[in-house]
């Protein structure tokens, strides 16, 4: 029955323990809605036929609803609404209180990618490995603007807010791959900010975790931001260094050193602040705003760079500040919600 409804309503598979709860209340509401809707529609239709106009100046009797009827129409829907509210709230509280034995994962949103980090060290970009059948607590934050971590198959969504953590949890019921989307509008590549949850069986997960132990990504002070490194690789691969330098000397294109947040004069007059949006736009539509003094020769990288590439390139450019380098912004401390 519920499987049939799920398919009729185009819902994705129920990949988590939360999903079946959310779907339960969904089905309850939608069935009630259709029953009541059909009843109202039918009543209206009958009235429409039975009391259709026979002549223009007809007088009609004054009919007033008795008080008990008004009371009925107030109380019955109210009862249903409050019931739904209460049932939903029960599940909501459940979905916001992670069980104590949950595996912690730090999730960081950034234009336009997701970064995952496990407490013991390994991290990953855009792929989250979790064991199936075990609760996983997500501690979510953002590096720049608000994002929202959304796994349709888990019916799970939580915003990533810069400067603080939000918390949610899930338990994947079976191994599989589940897409992750960003549900809060976050700029140019919002629709490409995608990732994946890979649920592994517990044994497979252990194997994976041991493998990861070798090459820790985030392992103490002094290590360059992995994204910055990735950005340098992307820049080399895409041939950016043929025109742009990183040491401050102008070349065919403006140097990247200190470019980030610099006010650049445009050849059309006016200036532009080289923020993330402008940098991204310049990769995709280079001729739109050309910095004064440079020839409009840059090709468009539309379609040649993935959202992740763009993110890492921007991160790389950001890292090339002339003055003191901004220290790595995200410093993930121990975060204890329990027993506050």
């Amino acid at each position, binding site marked *: 029955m519920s499987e049939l409804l799920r398919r009729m309503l185009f819902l994705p598979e129920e990949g988590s323990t939360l999903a079946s709860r959310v779907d339960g209340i969904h089905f309850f509401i939608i069935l009630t809605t259709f029953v009541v809707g059909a009843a109202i529609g039918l009543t209206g239709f009958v009235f429409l036929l039975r009391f259709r106009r026979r002549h223009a100046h007809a007088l009609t009797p004054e009919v007033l609803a008795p008080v008990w009827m008004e009371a009925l*129409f107030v109380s019955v829907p109210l009862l249903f609404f409050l019931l739904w509210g209460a049932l939903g709230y029960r599940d909501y509280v459940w979905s916001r209180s992670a069980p104590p034995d949950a595996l912690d994962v730090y999730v960081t949103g950034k234009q336009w990618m997701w970064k995952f980090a496990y407490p013991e060290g390994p991290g990953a970009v855009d792929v989250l490995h979790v064991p199936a059948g075990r609760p996983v607590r997500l501690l979510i934050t953002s590096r720049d603007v608000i994002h929202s971590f959304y796994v349709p198959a888990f019916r799970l969504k939580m915003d990533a807010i810069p400067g603080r953590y939000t918390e949610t949890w899930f338990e994947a019921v079976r191994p599989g791959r589940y897409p992750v989307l960003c549900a809060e*509008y976050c700029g140019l590549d919002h629709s490409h900010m995608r990732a994946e949850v890979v649920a592994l069986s517990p044994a497979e997960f252990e194997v994976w975790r041991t493998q990861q132990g070798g090459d820790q990504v985030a392992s103490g002070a002094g290590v360059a931001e992995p994204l910055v490194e990735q950005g340098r690789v992307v820049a080399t691969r895409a041939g950016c260094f043929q025109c742009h330098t990183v040491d401050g000397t102008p070349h065919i294109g403006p140097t990247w050193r200190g470019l980030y947040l610099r006010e650049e004069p445009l050849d059309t007059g006016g200036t532009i602040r080289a923020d993330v949006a402008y940098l991204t736009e310049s990769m995709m539509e280079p001729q739109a705003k050309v910095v004064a003094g440079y020839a409009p020769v840059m090709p468009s990288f539309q379609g040649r760079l993935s959202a992740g590439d763009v993110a890492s390139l921007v991160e790389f450019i950001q890292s090339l500040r002339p003055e003191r380098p901004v220290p790595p912004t995200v410093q993930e401390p121990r975060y204890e919600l329990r027993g506050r």
Partner: protein
Amino acid sequence: MSFEVAEPAMPREHYLNARRGAWSWLTTHDHKRIGVMFLVALLCTFLLGGMFALALRLELLTPGETVMGRLAYNRAFTLHGVIMVWLFLIPSIPTTFGNFLLPLMIGARDVAFPRLNLASFYLFVVGAVMTVWAILEGGVDTGWTFYTPYSTATGTDVLPVLMGVFVVGFSTILSGLNFITTVHTMRAPGMGWMRLPLFVWAIYGTSIIQVLATPVLGMVLLLVALERVVGVGLFDPARGGDPLLYQHLFWFYSHPAVYIMILPGMGVISEAVSAFCRKNPISYRVLVWSTVGIAFVGFLTWGHHMFVSGQSVLGAGTFSILSMLVAIFTALKIFTWTSTMYRGSIWMCTPFTYVLGFIFLLFFGGMSGVAVAVTSADLHWHDTYFVVAHFHFIMVGASLMAFLAGLHYWFPKMFGRCYPEGLGVGTAVLIIFGFITTFLPQFLLGNMGMPRRYADYPEHFQPLHVASTAGASLLGFGFLIIAAYLGWSLRHGRVAGRNPWGSRGYEWHSDSPPPEANFHEPPVFPYRPHDYSRPDLQPEVGHAA
């Protein structure tokens, strides 16, 4: 519509021809002319917003880039949202029909502050021009919600848009102030509160929301502007601020704003249901108190936009339960309208077709609203196409249908002429059908997990997007037909006469179109509004068969 043999004649002098020349329009203090000017302005903004809606649907026809890039798409949906919300839906019914009819319905010569009324119009025009110019010129890409910190970080030209909306907000406040004062002080002697026409009640409730909520929006927009100019950091986490506070303040306005959009529509429907069923509303009291209830409780529910935004669990629960209370008032109205048809004499004409569409769509729009206000269900639906479909059901399905119902019901009142009735009903059916084809698939898209504001999407979403785009083109086509036949009818429609519908609404007691001073002699309202049980105490001038 077929007519009796004796053709009614156009009144020789009425508000449209009492004074001549563009200057007499631009400097008029006449509430009817200001209403008509608002109508023209709003139709322009609606056209602009609608064109961008179609462009958006076209882009979403296929995954990947179809007609515009991501940046252009982001700017287009911002423009669509800002225009439709602030420049069309919020002012739509109150400033047009409200302005035109409110004094007529309460037997007054004008609104309480006629000059303020004109000022409100010009403020609206200035704000609208600023906003549209800024969006077209600078290309804002924040979405109509201006969420911080994105709106303070983006490189696009947010500032002029904020200022434009700020100015439009002033216009909204002044209109609301004017209407409240008019209802309080200018009612004809003997017209008690429980004898007001239901449309007046609806405008009154709306005005309260406008006056109390809009200033908060104004201040929030000002703070965002200050944040961009001098970096005050009130909503910026890097400076210790909290983006959620922005959302609180923004939704404190923007949730009640939804009721600013729908309450006047409900008023129109209450009038039209009575007029075309020739029947008293089955419970006037319920319709009145639910209007007041929506206006009040609508302010308590804003947090249901923030269930997954990191708001506290207790906060979410509070807002969820309070949201359930506001739903009950809408449900009551739907029950009342439906049962008003009982023992009536129902005339299936153009306005009533829209009324039926309104009730049907409002029911599903409202129920999906209850559904997303259920905290756990919102975990899945928040910020997906389910929400998009939900609020389009309310804003287009209900508000716009009510606007069209009102336009068709009062078109003879405003311009003294009728439109081709058959074409009207046919177009109404086409529009309702087009609407359902557009937005029903979006519910399913939301269920599948398609987030909103996506320029591009995974391929398995495509079939439903194709259906939606097809529906949108039907909808657009329907509007073109309406524009064509109403435009034609302005000059060539049959003369309507004073009361072509045989309605007992108070506004039909003066000529159609009304004289400049509204009444030639003080009118007498011999019965309660919407009373069809008694033979006429005053000759009823219905010319329709």
